[in-house]
């Protein structure tokens, strides 16, 4: 009887394990197949292609590291200067820093107990939901000479004849393109920061108010420390974001007039020139850069931001440990 019981339990256990295996395999077939097909297979192929001179169709020739050399060789012909196009990321990085600063300020205002802010919040956020091609047309129209932007500026007293062509004048066009990116993503940043700010305990603010802290002190000493993680994360993400800047020049200027960022150039080389090998090498180089930046981000969050149960970061714990060690040494000498 007892023996029998155990066996059925065992059978039952086996059948549950069996079920688990079947469910695991069945549920994973689709996502893993797709992941391999559209991420890892192309990833492997990309590395392979980067050593060949090849088009999409036709003859393939092994050329070793020549594609990589071409990526890193500076030239005076702007069309061929691949590494030089990375300089344009600085415009987007600048834009990203402005964007984060503005988003912090606006998020602080929107959470400061001001009334009737839903409209402002919604209006600031909505550009994030507008599709890329539509954004492209909106800003081609916006920046056309004598159109929207120029009308606003002439209303402020500027003379139309003194205003540059915002999208073709190489002194200003990259700044304008990065501004469109700020236009589009500012609201998303604001929402993220508001989310982080709302998670700060109300009591802490009240305690601050009782101690006579003003708005700025409250922001700097109470709000900032609790949202520093997300701010730093966004700053670091904006590095890889600006290195891989693609959409504004792609949809607005199509990379003309010196606005071709690294990715726009790569897209052109891949799909117009059909230099698949060279484009693959470019992709590999950029990916290595992005992985390095991500590792940096992980390191920063691990050492400076990740807090233990007592709210101390790794760095603070190290300092505390050192101090404790010194104290015990001192203590030892005294006794």
């Amino acid at each position, binding site marked *: 009887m007892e023996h029998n019981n155990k066996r059925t339990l065992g059978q039952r256990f086996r059948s*549950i394990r069996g*079920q688990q295996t079947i469910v*695991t395999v069945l*549920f*994973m077939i689709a*996502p*893993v197949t*797709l*992941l391999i097909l*559209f*991420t890892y*297979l*192309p*990833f492997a*192929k*990309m590395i392979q292609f980067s050593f060949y001179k090849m088009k*999409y169709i036709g003859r393939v020739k092994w050329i070793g590291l020549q594609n990589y050399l071409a990526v890193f060789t500076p030239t005076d012909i702007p069309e061929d200067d691949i590494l030089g196009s990375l300089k344009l990321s600085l415009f987007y990085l600048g834009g990203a820093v402005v964007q984060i600063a503005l988003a912090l300020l*606006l998020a602080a*205002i929107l959470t400061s107990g*001001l009334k009737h*802010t*839903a409209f*402002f919040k*919604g*209006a*600031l*956020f*909505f*550009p994030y*939901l*507008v*599709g*890329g*091609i*539509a954004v492209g*047309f*909106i*800003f081609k*129209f916006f920046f056309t000479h004598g159109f*929207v932007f120029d*009308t606003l500026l002439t209303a402020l007293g500027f003379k139309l004849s003194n205003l540059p062509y915002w999208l073709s004048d190489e002194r200003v066009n990259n700044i304008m393109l990065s501004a469109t990116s700020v*236009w589009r993503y*500012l609201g998303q940043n604001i*929402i*993220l920061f*508001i*989310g982080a700010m709302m998670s700060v305990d109300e009591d802490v603010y009240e305690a601050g108010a009782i101690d006579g802290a003003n*708005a700025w002190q409250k922001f700097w000493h109470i709000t900032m420390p609790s949202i520093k993680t997300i701010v730093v994360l966004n700053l670091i993400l904006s590095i890889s974001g600006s290195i*891989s800047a693609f959409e504004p020049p792609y949809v607005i200027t199509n990379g003309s007039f010196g606005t071709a960022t690294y*990715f726009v150039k*790569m*897209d052109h080389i*891949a*799909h117009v020139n059909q230099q*698949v090998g060279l484009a*693959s090498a*470019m*992709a590999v180089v950029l*990916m290595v850069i992005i*992985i390095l930046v991500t590792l940096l981000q992980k390191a920063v969050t691990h050492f400076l931001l990740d807090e233990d149960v007592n709210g101390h970061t790794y760095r603070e714990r190290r300092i505390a440990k050192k101090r404790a060690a010194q104290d015990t040494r001192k203590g030892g000498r005294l006794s």
Partner: protein
Amino acid sequence: MTNSKAMAPSDITAANRRGKNRKVLVHTLEYIFLAFMTFWALIPIWSCVVTSFKTADEYANTNVMTMPKNWGYFNNFIAAWNKANMGLAFWNSLLVLVVVLTGSILISAMLAFVLNRFKFPGNGLIRNLFLFATLIPGVAMQVTVYKIMYALNFINSLPGYMILLMGTDVISIYIFLQFFENLSVSLDESAILDGCTYFGVFFKILFPLLKPAIVTVLILKGVGTYNEYYNANLYLQDKSLYQVVSTCLYTFTGPMGSQYNYICSGVLITIVPVLIVFLLCQKQIYRGLAAGSVKG
């Protein structure tokens, strides 16, 4: 003692008044700054609205920011709809949305279920593979993805495009993974003891509980899919058959490149559905973004 008592009330009211005045001033400045930023957020879109209601004559002869004479002039919208064949575009986009969203949600929820609930060799590896995939910039891969799509005969194929969009979706997986972590395993266990199979546990018990996460994924992935233009442009090359909403605007490049009364109308037609979704689900969108960013 009496002295200070007599002094106190007037002092406090004076200080209060000063504080109140300061508060009013700060709030006014805050409103002005908000209004200034909101102006810049809306003016590019507003200028489009203004232009799309102008007749060809008005468009040619008035400044772009001059208000249209007749706000009931819808001919530009009709013309844009016909020129860009937007009926077809909306139909295709609807098909893509339905298939991609259904597929994505099922696939990611199932994967998250297995990864969260079962310990098996390779569990960590698969998590890491998906995590690493987020590091690879999408555009960079298109060079070789194109060759694979070509080999699979997925160029100019709506199903091919749908499968591609379903396959490149890591954020949904993370949203579901996070959600499963907060669903107690005792739910599964009691159902299993009641004789339920694991299929039953997933489809009958856990899947309905995922509703908030599903709404988040629906909105985020939905807007993303609706606006996706890069792959659509690359893989749905036969625009007369397979254009979607995001790419139908390409009709207005080339010879029609400066007819902004039509272009703006077209742009607004593509924006209106998103605006409606936004107005209806503002709260969920904000919440979803915050949820999606935690791991992103």
